[in-house]
């Protein structure tokens, strides 16, 4: 599924959405309303949240005022606690994802270029792909313990398959004729790789990387929730056990922000690649 983003964030739809639909002539009030429309839902949400706390509709153990969450955020930020947890999580993500994506890329290319490798790997590959990574967490904890190794393995597993599949598809979709033409013209391997294989596969791989980064991030947070001595997931889990809803909410917020940043980062690379391809 092509996941086009909502609303105003996509440049393609920007011209269409920057003006109210069916606008005739210039109506400053309508225009102002249209400009402020995206702020409506967050404002209402914040108001409802504040009102719930203000009128004590729920116990303070369940919901604290937005200001308290902001204060906790500031405190975690200044004490460096947040940076420590975030740093640990991102390091785990980098190591696990680096290993998984590199392995996936190598296997995907090997599978698409060699029939023997494909025959060798594909039964296990197809079977292992069906196992949701989350279901492997208890088994991996038993085998590797609750230390770092199991988290690396979980993240690597989550990132391996999307990248491997993307690389496989990327090479596979190169029209046979192109390869034949290259062979007929005795194209040097270097030129074949730089002019055909890489440009044809990279967009697929980048799309695969986007999927796999998102999944890896979720699975890492989940495994930190299950067992960890540090990291964003562990921070939230401790918050939950100590009924610190403010800490949990800061954790959720940061988890979302990291997810957003990772996604936006890969999207930027994708856009650059598109421009470069068209050029």
């Amino acid at each position, binding site marked *: 599924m092509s996941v086009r983003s909502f609303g105003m964030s996509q440049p393609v739809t920007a011209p269409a959405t920057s003006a109210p639909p069916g606008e005739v002539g210039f109506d400053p009030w309508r225009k102002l309303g249209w400009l402020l429309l995206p702020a409506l839902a967050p404002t209402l949400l914040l108001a409802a949240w504040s009102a719930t706390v203000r009128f004590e509709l729920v116990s303070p153990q369940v919901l604290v005022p937005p200001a308290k969450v902001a204060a906790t955020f500031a405190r975690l930020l200044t004490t460096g606690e947040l940076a420590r947890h975030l740093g640990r999580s991102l390091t785990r993500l980098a190591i696990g994802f680096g290993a998984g994506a590199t392995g996936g890329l190598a296997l995907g290319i090997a599978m698409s270029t060699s029939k023997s490798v494909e025959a060798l790997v594909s039964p296990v590959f197809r079977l292992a792909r069906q196992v949701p990574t989350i279901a492997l967490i208890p088994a991996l904890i038993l085998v590797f313990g609750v230390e770092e190794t199991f988290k690396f393995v979980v993240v690597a597993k989550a990132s391996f398959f999307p990248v491997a599949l993307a690389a496989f598809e990327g090479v596979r979709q190169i029209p046979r004729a192109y390869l034949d033409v290259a062979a007929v013209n005795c194209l040097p391997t270097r030129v074949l790789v730089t002019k055909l294989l890489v440009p044809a596969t990279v967009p697929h791989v980048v799309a695969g990387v986007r999927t796999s980064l998102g999944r890896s991030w979720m699975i890492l947070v989940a495994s930190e929730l299950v067992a960890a001595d540090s990291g964003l997931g562990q921070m939230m889990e401790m918050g939950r056990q100590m009924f610190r809803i403010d800490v949990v909410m800061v954790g*959720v917020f940061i988890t979302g922000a990291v997810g957003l940043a990772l996604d936006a980062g890969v999207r930027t690379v994708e856009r650059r690649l598109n421009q470069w391809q068209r050029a």
Partner: protein
Amino acid sequence: MTARGIASSNVRRWLLGSTIPLALATSWMILSHDRRTSYAFVPLGQMAASAVELVASGELVGALAASLAKTATGLVLGVPAGVVVGASMGASRSLDRALGPLLHAFRQVPYLGLAPLIGLWFGVSDVAKVLLVFLAVFYPMVLSAYEGVRNVDSKLIDVARVLKLDASQVVTKLVLPSVLPHLYTGLSQAIAFAWIATIGSEMLLHAGGGVGTLMQMGEAAGRLDVVFVGVLSVALASFGLDSLFGLVGRHVMRWRDDAWSRG
């Protein structure tokens, strides 16, 4: 290629394909005989015995049924909600502008990352777990319904207006054919996510029945055989859900194949 050539290449494929599973099984057996690693690598015979025991006692079936019930509840609630929200946003620019940014921001929070928050609000009850499944289903459905409605050809809508087609005709002749393929993709994703969210929520908020809880308890007891039977049944169920959806989906979407084959 001659018939014999094809046959021999099939044999070769088959032989190559069984290499890795055989190698894995062999190394497993070696590890299970070694005292230093046998804590984790349970002998294969014992694994099979545990599997038989879990099935015979009805424990595994009960756990699977409990998990699948949560998945189904989450889907039944999440799919219509997601479709309504996504389709409305696709149809109305103002609604899209009002809700889009907020929804898009919320979507970025990995649904399992919400487990501690939902756990605080709803405890470790089934409500909390179904809510996580609901969220896992909701966003892909919103996205796919939105995409589908957005992709309705506006020229055709103009034509329909000129021809004075009534609303029901516009929906059945123009909107649904554009939306259904998107929903199909979205639903296949949503079903996979729903199952993952079920297992994940059972593992993170472990109480009550379910395969996730079964595995979590197996882990706590150091019973790798139980855990592996769990993993196997999770994978089989995931495969089963996927195949079932493929069968039903292809049947429902057969009009599209007709359209394609007619060119």
